[in-house]
Structure formats: C-alpha cells, structure tokens
C-alpha cells in the first residue's frame, strides 16, 4: 500500500515538474515580450520627453530637482547632470516659495517667473502641477515657456510704434517746411536776379562816371563809399552766395519731397517709376551711408511697375540700410570706403533691382533664417529683425515677385528684387 502511494506521489511530482517547466517557459516568453513592449514604450516616452519644446522640470517635495528635459538644459545652459539633484531654489527662489506654500494638490497656469540661467535671468511662464503618482514619491511637475522672444517682440513693437510716430511727425514737418522753402527759394531767385540787374546798373554808373566832369568832393565820396562797402568783393561774392543759397534750398526741397514721397501710405497699386523710387530712397538714407560708402547707380530703361509705392520704398530702404550697415561693420578700424551699388534692368516681363554692397557677407549658417520674422544679427535695440521679413512679404506676397540674395562672406552681398511688370492680380482678373 505504501509503495503504491509512494509511486503515485512520485508520478504526480514528475507531472508537476513537467507542468511547472511548461509554465516557466510560457512565463519567460511572456516576460520577454512584456519587457520588449516596456522598452519600446519607455524609449517612446523618453524621446517624447526629450523633444518636448517646452522646458520640463520635475521637483521632489524636498526641493531637489529630480529630472529635466533637453529643452530645460538648453534654456538654462546647464548640463542635465549638474541640474539633477540641485535645489530648485537655485533656479528660482520664487518658484520654490510657491511650491512650499501650495500644498499637495496644487495646480497653476500662467505663473510668471524668472529663472537663473548661465547667461542671466530668463523670463518664463510656468504651468505647475503637483502630483502623487502611483509609483514613487509625490512630485511637482513644472513646464516652462521661454518668454525672451515675446519680451523682445513687445520691445520691438514699442520701438516700431515709436518709429511710426516719428515717421508721421517727420512727414508732417516735411509738409510744413515745404511751403516756406518755396517762398525762400522764390525770394532768393528774385534777389539773385535783382542783384544781377543792380550790378549791371552800377557798372553803367561807373562807366558813365569815368567819362563825365565831376567836382572832386562827390567823386572822392563815391570812391570812399566804394571802398567802404568793398564793391569789388560784393560783385564777386554775392552771386556766389545766391547760388549756394539756392543750391541749399534745392537740397532741402529734394529731401522734403523725398520724405513726403516716402511716407506716402499708398493704399492702391500705382504705376511707379522704380528708378525714381530708388533715387528717393538714396536721398532719404544718405545720412546712413555717406560716411562709409560711395554710391554707384546704374539705372536701366525700365517701364513703370504697378506697385504699392510706400511699401516698395520701405523695401529699398531696408536693403540700402542693411547694405550700409554691412559695409560699416566690415570696415571698422579701416580707412577704406565701401561701394553701394544700385542697378535696375528689365528681364522679360519683370523689372529687376539689385542692391549690392562690399560688406561682411552673410554666413551660410544663417541663410535659411534670413527672411524669418524677428531674426536679427544686430545687437539689442539696433535691429528689429523685421526688415527682411517685411521686405519678403511685400515683394513676394503683395507683388507676386521674388526676393533672393547672393553672398560671399567677407566680400559682400547682392539682393535681387524681381517685380512683374504686369500686375498678377490684374492679369488674373
């Protein structure tokens, strides 16, 4: 009986071993597959976490940083291994104060803060959630959006509004100056003519005086008075003075006319003399390039082009100002002057304008960003980063043209504006 029982138990034990082996194999396979799925999910989440454009900061309840993503590393300019474990207070004392006072179930959006990065304070807007995850200790999750570009934008907007006011003021002043300049010019020309006539009369008097008998008293008095007023000097210099006065009046009038033409808003497309627009631009911008560059113009015989004159003036001004600044930058500490060359020609159904400079050229690394809004290589307060972006929009979107450039770093850049002679809008209609 005992032997039978023993052999049954042995047989059952052997079967159990076989069943367990099968189970272990099944479980091992399941484990392997689960592990693979887990690794894939983990890799996916890690990548997602890493490429998230917003900066993420995971903070333990004791205030130490538990984790950061790539965007945070880039924002603060500090390597991840130096951030992890560090007190969050070292990045923002205000954030830490808020986390301490907020309790275990806090949530907030639009929390304005300033983080301490390597390059100085960085304005950020935070979304904060405090959570007690199923696995691990309670944490604060902080998502930060960099506000530097927005602040810069606001700054530039204020700057642009100021410039617009100044522009309107300048246009108003130009209008007010125009009228007195006209009568100053007219009166100067009247005086110039009258003086020439008076000189002719004086010459006749003198010739006549030489041929007639006159008592010595009056003759002496005339000679003394001629000496006193320095008649020879007046005869020589007054016509020159009038000529220079009129030249000055002409220059002021040209500038005033250019400013008025430039500031004209132009709500509709009008047939525009592009060569005249280029000349106007050179007049308005003269102060920007006169100390650094010599201007060369080569304007071809081109037809009128339908365009928004005010907008195109702005485009040409942007290109001329950029060219002047590139030349100035290249020639810092050098005696030499650069060349600013404006050309125009007809190419089939298009008019092409080129603005060339002998400036610094544009590094290849930033070619693709050149027409991006708010992209600028100039220091804060110097450039709005809007010039080329606006120019691109005006030429391409408003006029159906094209704007491109050729550049050689260290040698210079040429921008080409290509405008259709036939208004694309008109031809379509």
């Amino acid at each position: 009986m005992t032997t039978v029982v023993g052999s049954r138990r042995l047989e059952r034990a052997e079967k159990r071993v076989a069943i367990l082996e099968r189970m272990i194999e099944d479980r091992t396979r399941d484990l392997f597959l689960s592990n693979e799925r887990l690794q894939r999910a983990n890799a996916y989440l890690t990548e997602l976490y890493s490429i998230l454009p917003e900066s993420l900061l995971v903070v333990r309840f004791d205030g130490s940083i538990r984790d950061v993503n790539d965007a945070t590393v880039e924002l603060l300019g500090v390597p991840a291994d130096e951030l992890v474990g560090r007190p969050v207070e070292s990045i923002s004392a205000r954030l830490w104060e808020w986390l301490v006072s907020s309790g275990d179930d806090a949530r907030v959006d639009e929390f304005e803060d300033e983080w301490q990065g390597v390059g100085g304070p960085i304005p950020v807007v935070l979304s904060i959630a405090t959570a007690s995850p199923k696995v691990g200790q309670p944490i604060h999750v902080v998502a930060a959006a960099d506000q530097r570009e927005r602040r810069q934008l606001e700054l530039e907007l204020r700057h642009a509004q100021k410039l617009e006011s100044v522009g309107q003021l300048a246009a108003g002043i130009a209008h007010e100056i125009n009228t007195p300049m006209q009568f100053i010019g007219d009166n100067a020309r009247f005086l110039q003519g009258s003086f020439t006539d008076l000189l002719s009369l004086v010459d006749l008097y003198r010739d006549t005086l030489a041929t007639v008998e006159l008592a010595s008293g009056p003759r002496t008095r005339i000679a003394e008075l001629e000496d006193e007023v320095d008649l020879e000097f007046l005869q020589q210099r007054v016509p020159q003075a009038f000529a220079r006065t009129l030249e000055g009046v002409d220059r002021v009038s040209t500038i005033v006319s250019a400013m008025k033409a430039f500031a004209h808003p132009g709500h509709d497309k009008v047939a525009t003399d592009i060569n005249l627009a280029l000349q106007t631009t050179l007049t308005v911008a003269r102060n920007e390039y006169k100390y650094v560059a010599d201007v060369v113009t080569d304007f071809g015989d081109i037809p009128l082009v339908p365009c928004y004159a005010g907008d195109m003036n702005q485009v040409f001004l942007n290109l001329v100002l950029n060219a002047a600044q590139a030349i100035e930058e290249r020639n810092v500490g050098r005696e030499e002057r650069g060349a600013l060359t404006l050309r125009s020609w007809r190419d089939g159904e298009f008019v092409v304008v080129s603005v060339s400079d002998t400036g610094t050229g544009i590094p290849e690394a930033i070619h693709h960003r050149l027409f991006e809004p708010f992209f600028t290589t100039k220091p804060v307060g110097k450039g709005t980063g809007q010039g080329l972006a606006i120019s691109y929009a005006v030429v391409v979107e408003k006029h159906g043209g094209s704007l491109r450039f050729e550049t050689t770093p260290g040698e210079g850049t040429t921008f080409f504006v290509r405008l259709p002679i036939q208004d694309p809008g008109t031809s379509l209609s």
Partner: protein
Amino acid sequence: MKGVVFNLLEAFVCEGWGDEVYEALLERTELETQEPFVGPGTYPDSDLVALASNAALMLDLPLGAVLRAFGEYCFPQLAAKVPMLVDSHSDLISFLQSIDSVLHVEVRKLMPQAVTPTFLVDRTGPDTARLAYHSERRLCGFMEGLLVGAGRHFGTDVEFTKHSCMHQGAASCEYDLVVHVQHALPTSIAGTAAQG
C-alpha cells in the same frame, strides 16, 4: 482558486492524517482537473469544495470545521510568502483593513486571473471591528480559519460573532470581531486540525 491552496490542502491532510489518507481522498473525489495541482495554476473552486467535502466525510467531521482548521493552517504558510505586507502592521485589525486595499491588489498584480473576495473591515474600537466577507466561492469557514490564524500571527485570540451568512441567503457574511491579547502559547497546527 489558485493552485497554492490545493497544495496547502494536500500538505494539511498529509501532515494531519498521512499520505495514504490524501491518496484515498484523491481517488474517491471526482475532480474537473485531471492533472496534478501546481502553485501558480488556477483551478475550479468546485474542486476545492469537493476535496474538502470528501475529507470531512472521510474524517467524519463537519465541513465547516474542516475548512476552519484548513484556514488556520494556511495563514502562516501564506503570510510567509508576503511577509512585508503582513509584518508592516502592528495589530490584527490594522492588517485586516489592508487586505482589500493592499494584499488583494498585490495578488492580482502577480496573478491577473486571480479572483479575490471582498473583505470590508470597520474598526469600531481599539480591539473591536465589524467585518463583511463576500465571495462567489462562499468559503466563509475557510475565511474564519484564516482569521484565527491571522490572530495567532499577531499574538491575539479572535472572538467573532456571525450575524449573517451567504449560505443562508445573505449578500455577505458579517461578523463582529473582538481581539484579545493571547496569554497561552499557540496550539500546534495538527492539533488544531485534529480538534476541529
């Protein structure tokens, strides 16, 4: 029911009454399961009830008493598998209160097919509690034995008064528990089973 309970039943019978009795029990019991029970496997509840019922018949004991003795035998064996979930509690009632929210949760994590009973415990005083047990298996005798075994683990005796029973048509088996600090040394498992 998990295979570990069937294996404990085998050990319980073999230790208490000998291998021959268990072999005879297997031989006279019609089981749905045709292969030997292994710990990680899941088997029909009816097989456990059939084995326990036949054991009661063979030993000439009431089924309830057999199940209670078996439950009392099982507790230390089961507790030894998850000591961190048991020994983290300072008293029996605190442990009982964690069964549904911690222990059964962990069991389901390890064995997703496991069907765990509902075990609601309200502490009514420092040493008293109200307990409601519900399970499709209706193994209240086995649960009572586990309760006694758990009490012993914490060095206490548990006195319970049953107010309702699923076997009498109630939705759950409800008990009032009173916990007494144990003065006598625990009796041996085999002794308890033999007495039961």
